[in-house]
């Protein structure tokens, strides 16, 4: 089984500051892979590199076996239509309604009649648990949780088999965050998605992730959830067994 996303020997430097130094990562089909790391360890840079928004100094990034660091714009465009991204703050286009936001990638990549366009956009909006009335709203009129869901609907616009979520539950109350996790799990199961998510939310990790990659010392340590919790690395120990984590871990193991 070859990986859907594969990163090898990634080096990212900004001036003298080395963010990644030979980082390796593999993400396989149908898994939910969580990327964890302290602030400033380069989680977002890693995501931007995988998405082709940032060219690394060295290393290989393969999506479905194709190295995107060596691609020209046209090839990259084709790869980009094969995955969906939801950004941390939603990044909904503020001048467009939710429906138009979802339709934008469709208009760009597909040739559809307007009826089909409306139907499909509404389908995606309903699929992420938003009411049909939300379709006509502008991003400024949405609550935080709705923005996250709308961003997810836009990420799903082209039915991508691969989904990137950047801190999908940050800024949500625990109930909404749990509901969002359930939604992610539901979509993963029903649509057979491969999901990569950056998250800080321990609840989210324990609820959704099959495997976790932790960025420590400019490298990535990745393992199954069980394996990573028992990893001897001090930062990982602190992260999963610190004050804040202990209660949750106990709850997760007890269940």
């Amino acid at each position: 089984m070859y990986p859907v996303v594969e990163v090898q020997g990634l080096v990212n430097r900004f001036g003298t500051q080395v963010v990644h130094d030979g980082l390796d990562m593999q993400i396989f089909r149908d898994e939910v892979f969580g990327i964890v790391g302290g602030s400033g360890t380069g989680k977002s840079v890693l995501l931007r590199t995988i998405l082709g928004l940032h060219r690394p100094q060295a290393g290989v990034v393969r999506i479905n076996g194709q190295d995107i660091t060596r691609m020209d714009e046209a090839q990259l465009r084709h790869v980009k239509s094969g995955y969906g991204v939801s950004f941390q703050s939603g990044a909904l286009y503020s001048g467009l309604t939710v429906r138009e936001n979802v339709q934008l990638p469709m208009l760009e990549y597909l040739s559809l009649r307007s009826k089909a366009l409306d139907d499909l956009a509404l389908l995606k909006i309903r699929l992420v648990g938003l009411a049909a009335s939300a379709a006509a709203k502008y991003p400024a009129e949405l609550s935080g949780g709705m923005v996250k869901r709308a961003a997810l609907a836009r990420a799903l616009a082209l039915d991508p088999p691969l989904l990137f979520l950047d801190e999908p539950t940050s800024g949500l109350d625990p109930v909404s965050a749990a509901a969002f996790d359930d939604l992610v799990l539901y979509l993963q199961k029903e649509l057979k998605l491969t999901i990569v998510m950056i998250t800080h939310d321990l609840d989210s990790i324990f609820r959704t992730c099959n495997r976790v990659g932790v960025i420590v010392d400019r490298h990535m340590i990745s393992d199954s959830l069980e394996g990573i919790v028992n990893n001897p690395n001090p930062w990982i120990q602190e992260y999963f067994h610190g004050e804040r984590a202990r209660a949750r871990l106990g709850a997760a193991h007890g269940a």
Partner: protein
Amino acid sequence: MAAEVRRSAQGLELILSGEWGAREFGTLEAELAAVPLGADPIRIDARGVSTLSLSGAWALHQFLARAQAAGAAVSFAGGAPPEQLRLLDEALREAAAGAAGSLPETAAAVAPQGAILGLLTDVGREVVHYGSSFRDGLAFVGQGTTTLLASLPHLHRLRPTSIARHVYDTGITALPIVALIAFLISVIIAYMSATQLRGLGADIYVVDLLTIGVLRELGVLLTAIIVAGRSGSAFAAELGSMKLNEEVDALVATGLNPFEVLIAPRMLGLTIALPLLTVVADLVGLTGGAILCRYLLDMPFTQYITRVDGSIAPTTFWVGIIKAPVFAVLIAYAGCYHGMRVRSSARELGHLVTVAVVQAIFLVILADALFAVLFMKMDI
């Protein structure tokens, strides 16, 4: 062929194959639309489909709805319909329960009500809109003035550093373009008037025209228009993106008055910068005139200076320069006011920046016209 139709004794057989993704949606729909529907039972074999995406499932869902409407019995080869269809039904049912009522409501609000009534409604809505934006503008001016008056006695509340920054941004950095434009304007006046006046043998009046034109009107007016384009837009864009970013809310929450922190320094900074820029524009304009007269009319510099001295009244310079602070306040007002009106979107920001610049230029020219009338009545 993604959907192949076979006719057998039992009815229609539909064999689906290949990729049923979002990219193929157009073809899928066309092919499914071409399937002849009747009362004959339809048997669908979807086992050959490699990936049935949601979009593909939606196309199939629509087809099934049409088949049902036509009265055809549908069955699936291998027993159960594809998983994705169930997911689709689930998603649609869940949301339909929650949101059925809300759409028709909005539809009713915009429903056509007859031509005359519609026109009246539009006129009324516009009047109310303009009325309320006029009131908002007045409120803004009022709030700005009271804040300024309240903070005037306390130097630190005027934020000198911030003012200095705005003097630099709106004044010093604008020097090259203001100087260049002032020079070019003097070239235009000199050339135009020289060609006309030379025929009358009245070349010397080119100097009068230049001096009075630049000092009284053009120096200050063109500087104000350039500054309206540069700084009016900068104010609106800066404040607008701060509003979008909730920075203004953060200020208010900290107990700071955005009028005091953001708007007063801009007003005062520009009020200092614009008169200074005008002085520079006047100087460059007159110098440009001197050079032009020297080479165009063969007039020695000494004669030019004497003539300039003779043509201006003591008030000429002041009549021009006194307008500068007024223009500065108008420009700063238009930029800040429209910047603070931004609420939600990037598009709104762009629109309001445009409105700010257009309104700043309009206000400057309107004020200039009023000044012209005023000075004529005052006989200066």
